[in-house]
Each structure stands twice: as C-alpha cells, then as structure tokens.
C-alpha cells in the first residue's frame, strides 16, 4: 500500500465524515428529531468504521481466495459486482440500525434518513468520478483503498 494514498484516503474520510454529520443533522432536524452536530458525527463515525472494516476484510481476503481458486477475470469481475451489491445492502441495513439506535426514533424515519444519505453520497461520488475522469482522464479509485465503497 502506498502511504500517500492511505494519507489521502484518511483526509477524504475525515471530510466525508464532517459533511455526512452536517447532512444527517439537517435531515434529522427536518424530521423534528432532537439532533446536534455531535450526534450526527457519532452516527456517521460508527457507520464509517463498520464500512471500513468490511471493506478492509474484502480487500485482504478476496484476492488470495480468487488466486487460490484460479478464477478467470470475467468470473472475478462478476463476483466483485455481486460483493459490491451486498455491501450496498449491508450499508443501508447498518445505517438504519445505527440511526435508529442513536436517535431512538421509529424505523421508517431511520430508513428514510439512511437512504437519503446513501443515495446522495452515490450521486455526489458519481459527479466527482466523472469530473476527475473528464478533466484528468484518470479513474480516481485506483490506489485508494478505504475510499472505494462509499
């Protein structure tokens, strides 16, 4: 692992964490929940720690497993697509439980907040991805490890 990539990853993670905390706080306020930046920050901190752990497990477990099974590139790509979808679902379920437990509110509200956060993040990531590709002709996830699943 390249130390610069890890450093950039950590800086990006902190920025994402702060933005997510502000956004979650705003969404919770709109639902008339008792909320603060601190609570939004804690929700997202726990959420991101879980996601990073899951992602790191996949990064370290999957490649040796694929080599051991001597899979073709097409098979590996297909498996990664399925894993990506599973992470997406796990991300949403985790988010619902974390938001529910920190705000102690009903599940429909927690689901709405989680889905809005996850989808908004996806759209913003896609915009960043396209912009970087459009202006620099590079795919930004290359070399970034922790940042990939968000």
């Amino acid at each position, binding site marked *: 692992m390249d130390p610069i990539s890890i450093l950039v990853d950590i800086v990006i993670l902190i920025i994402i964490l702060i933005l997510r905390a502000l956004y979650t706080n705003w969404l919770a306020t*709109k639902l008339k929940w008792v909320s603060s930046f601190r609570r939004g920050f804690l929700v997202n901190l726990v959420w991101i720690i879980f996601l990073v752990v899951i992602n790191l497990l996949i990064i370290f477990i999957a490649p040796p497993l694929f080599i051991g099974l001597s899979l073709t590139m097409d098979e590996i790509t297909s498996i990664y*697509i399925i894993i990506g979808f599973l992470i997406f679902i796990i991300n*949403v379920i985790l988010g619902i439980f974390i938001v529910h437990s920190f705000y102690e509110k009903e599940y429909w509200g927690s689901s709405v907040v989680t*889905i*809005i956060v996850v989808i*908004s993040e996806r*759209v913003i990531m896609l915009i960043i991805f396209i912009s970087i590709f459009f202006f620099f002709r590079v795919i930004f996830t290359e070399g970034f490890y922790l940042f990939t699943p968000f």
Partner: protein
Amino acid sequence: MIYNISDIIFIYNTIYIIFSYIILFGGIFLTKFFTDKFECRKPYKTAVLVNVIWFLITFFVFSFLSGLITGYLITIGADVVLISIVGVINSVIILIINFLVIALLIKVFYKTGLKDSIFISLAVISIQVFIRIIVANVLNIIFILNTGHYFSFYVFQFF
C-alpha cells in the same frame, strides 16, 4: 430455442424499463406518504397530479433533450467513451433537475415551505433511486448467472 446475447439484453432491458415505470408511478404513494408526515394532508388527486406533471416534463423535455444530444454525438461520429460519459452526465443532470422540479411542484401544490419541499423531494427521489439500484442489481445478477457477462441497467448501479 437459442437466443443470442443482444436478444437477452433486450429482454432484460425491457423488464428493467417496466420496473422503472412502476417505480416512477410509485412516486404517487411516496409523495402522499411524506406530505402526510409533514401534515400537508391533501387527497391522492394532488399526489397524482404532481407525479403526472413531473412525468410529462421528464418524458417530453429531458428525455427528448438527452436523446437529441446523444443523437448529435452519434451523427458527428464521436468516440464511444465520450458518448457514454455524456450519457452519464445527462443522467446526473436529469436527476438533479428532477429533484428541483418535484421540490417546486410540491411547494406549489402543497404550499409547504421551501426546506420541507426539498426534504420531501429528496426522500421521494432517493427511495426511487434506491429501489431502481436494487432492481438493476438483481437483474444484473440473474444476467450474470445466465450468461456469465455483466450489464449496466442503471447509471448509479455500480457506484
């Protein structure tokens, strides 16, 4: 009967488009649900009206413009990568405009505050995108299991 890959893609795409329309008009129930939660109790007729106007704008204005741009790029013989990037940019811009249009429609029809209508619009669009991602991914997994290849049904499917 043996189908080739383009036939299979066509069948899957058709299934996805049918689901997309169901999800799109599911927006009626979502609009009703969220406006009720924000205590703007109005009959289903208003939710239907908001969603039909939204659909007409999307279908006749945005889809037309998007098709026009893609058609122009194909006519001038643009690079395939450029066409696909422009397609993705179009989808993102359309999503953002959709979000603004529905926020405006909710503000006008339900007479809510701007921030509340933005929240309702965010909730409706996010849930629709979320269901679309799930449908696209499930179809893609079935497609992978049947053919061994993968296919992108929706812009936000893999991100």
